């Protein structure tokens, strides 16, 4: 085959050809982990498509053969997923098509390839320095169904806690639903560890998978998974990318565990990460009374009394700080946001009007809490089956997305002991002294390590 590559442990093509996502799936297969059967149309086909405005000669024949093979492997006409994915991740910018009958696969491939060149995708590449000529790969796989029965579901799992770096599995699971419902935030997810009781075999399989991918990548990892009728399937793996104190703790712990050397640990943390560590966070203590979790949209912690309307926020702010809690943000809320210390919205993502406005005003913000309700008439907000009256003191963390009842402890160096150790190693490497700024100590070590 010229254009198409099997999704198999033997496939040796690079992420340049397969795209980052499919390359990760090949890694999973090599580790003996369960991945739904499928194949990859390499980025070369996309480049040919972009140059000529049509699918390259011979791709149709290869595609028919690959689909036949997939049908033979699954023993029935499979329902397909067709996903885009280039060498560099471009989350949400390109098309993914799910629940596709076999005969629709060619037009779906054309649609996915075309999505490389939408203005929005071009803008994303311009901003992130991704060359326009790379093109996307297309991964075609048999669908697995998290909504098959009551032993089905989907979720995301981290090998370590991405907020703190703590070495414990962390994530979310959605019972009886498909994975796109988890990612979109449309549905209410449960903490990952609930799998342990409800689906012990899936939980055991997932722990094993997290262990194996960490061993392979020698880094904290993120898995997307679906379980169908009790069988676990992995849909994506991604190493690293933790921020701030979590990045510091993971690098230090990995060195202590012997997974990486101290030099490597130092190089895993950029001096910029240390600026992140200085952003105030709600202390990740067990006693914190978490009302809800959303997405952090503007970093920082705000503490204040709940206000359910902009007018109430403006009025209540005269007597001390308030946190504005709204279903979404409209221009009618802006004077309330201006008066508030922070904002929470049920809808929206990190790139929503609410998030943009909160950042413009420098107000800590949490967005995208699927089950948050705002009852203006009843002067209360609700989440997770609890109701909190207007005027209740809450704290919000615009980095981790936590909404906490009361006044929890706020810290700027949750990674304290780990950061201290890491910077000690940095001084050993650079021969410097600890009386310099943290970022400078790390940068000095990087300079030495970079020349070894």
């Amino acid at each position: 085959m010229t254009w198409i590559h099997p999704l198999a442990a033997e496939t040796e093509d690079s992420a340049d050809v397969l795209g980052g996502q499919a390359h990760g799936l090949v890694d999973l297969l090599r580790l003996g982990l369960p991945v739904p059967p499928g194949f990859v149309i390499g980025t070369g086909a996309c480049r040919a498509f972009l140059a000529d405005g049509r699918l390259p000669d011979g791709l149709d024949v290869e595609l028919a053969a690959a689909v036949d093979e997939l049908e033979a492997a699954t023993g029935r006409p499979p329902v397909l997923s067709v996903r885009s994915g280039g060498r560099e991740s471009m989350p949400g910018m390109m098309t993914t098509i799910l629940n596709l009958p076999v005969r629709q696969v060619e037009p779906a491939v054309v649609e996915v390839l075309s999505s490389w060149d939408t203005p929005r995708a071009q803008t994303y590449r311009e901003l992130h320095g991704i060359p326009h000529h790379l093109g996307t790969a297309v991964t075609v796989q048999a669908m697995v169904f998290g909504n098959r029965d009551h032993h089905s579901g989907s979720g995301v799992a981290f090998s370590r806690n991405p907020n703190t770096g703590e070495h414990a599995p962390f994530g979310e699971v959605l019972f009886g639903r498909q994975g796109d419902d988890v990612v979109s935030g449309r549905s209410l997810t449960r903490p990952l560890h609930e799998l342990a009781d409800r689906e012990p075999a899936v939980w055991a399989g997932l722990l094993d998978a997290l262990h194996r991918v960490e061993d392979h990548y020698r880094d904290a990892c993120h898995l997307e998974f679906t379980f169908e009728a009790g069988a676990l399937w992995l849909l994506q793996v991604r190493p690293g990318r933790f921020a701030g104190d979590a990045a510091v703790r993971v690098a230090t712990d990995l060195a202590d565990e012997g997974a990486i050397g101290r030099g490597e640990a130092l190089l895993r943390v950029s001096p910029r990460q240390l600026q992140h560590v200085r952003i105030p966070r709600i202390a990740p203590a067990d006693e914190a009374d978490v009302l809800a979790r959303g997405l952090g949209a503007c970093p920082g912690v705000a503490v204040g009394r709940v206000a359910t309307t902009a007018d109430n926020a403006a009025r209540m702010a005269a007597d001390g700080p308030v946190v504005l809690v709204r279903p979404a943000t409209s221009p009618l809320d802006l004077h309330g946001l201006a008066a508030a210390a922070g904002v929470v919205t049920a809808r929206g993502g990190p790139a929503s009007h609410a998030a943009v406005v909160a950042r413009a005003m420098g107000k800590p913000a949490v967005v995208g809490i699927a089950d948050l309700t705002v009852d203006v008439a009843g002067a209360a907000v609700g989440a997770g089956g609890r109701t909190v009256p207007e005027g209740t003191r809450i704290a919000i963390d615009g980095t981790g997305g936590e909404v906490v009842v009361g006044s929890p402890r706020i810290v700027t160096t949750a990674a304290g002991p780990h950061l201290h150790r890491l910077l000690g190693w940095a001084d050993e490497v650079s021969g410097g002294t600890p009386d310099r700024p943290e970022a400078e100590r790390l940068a000095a070590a990087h300079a030495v390590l970079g020349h070894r």
Partner: protein
Amino acid sequence: MTWPGPPHATSTDLLVLHALRCIGFAGLGRVAAAAGLPEPDVESELIDLAVAGLVSHAAGDFGGWGLTEAGRAVDAERIAGELETAGTRTVVAAAYDGFLVLNPELLDLCTAWQMRSVDGVVTLNDHSDPGYDARVLDRLTDLDRRAEAVCADLSAAMLRFRRYRVRLTDALASARSGALDDVTDSTASYHIVWFQLHEDLLATLGIPR
């Protein structure tokens, strides 16, 4: 889709009421800028609207004009009536579809203006890299050019939408000439005007946010 007839002209009192509906609580200057009318005329209309119980004024340093519940209801009714009378619902709905194609990209651009990924870490953009800022502004300029068709179709159907084209152009020109606040931060920034256009389209078509 372009409206074939002459554009519908909105009466001055509704223009002022609806400006307040789309921009939220604001001082006289901002209401006048949104409505595209001289401040004394707008003040006179606001006082009449206040007498009718549709708007209210709060005094003080952070004071300004805001819509009352009654004002919001009357605006919804009159704006819906205007759309039906003018027969422009189909044109406005088509323009809204065009707007929704551009909106995620505009929000991406605003986010990129505020936050930046360096060494794999997302941090606040401190605007110390003119090359990066120029890339964002170039893409914003390109998006603004593509927004032209949406604005033109809206303005051809209803005159009151003309103000958005003027205000977006002003914000972009100002940002390009070095006023960094006019991308996302100021009350006349590109994002705020765009956000108000979004609100206007929702309010005009009667779509809940």
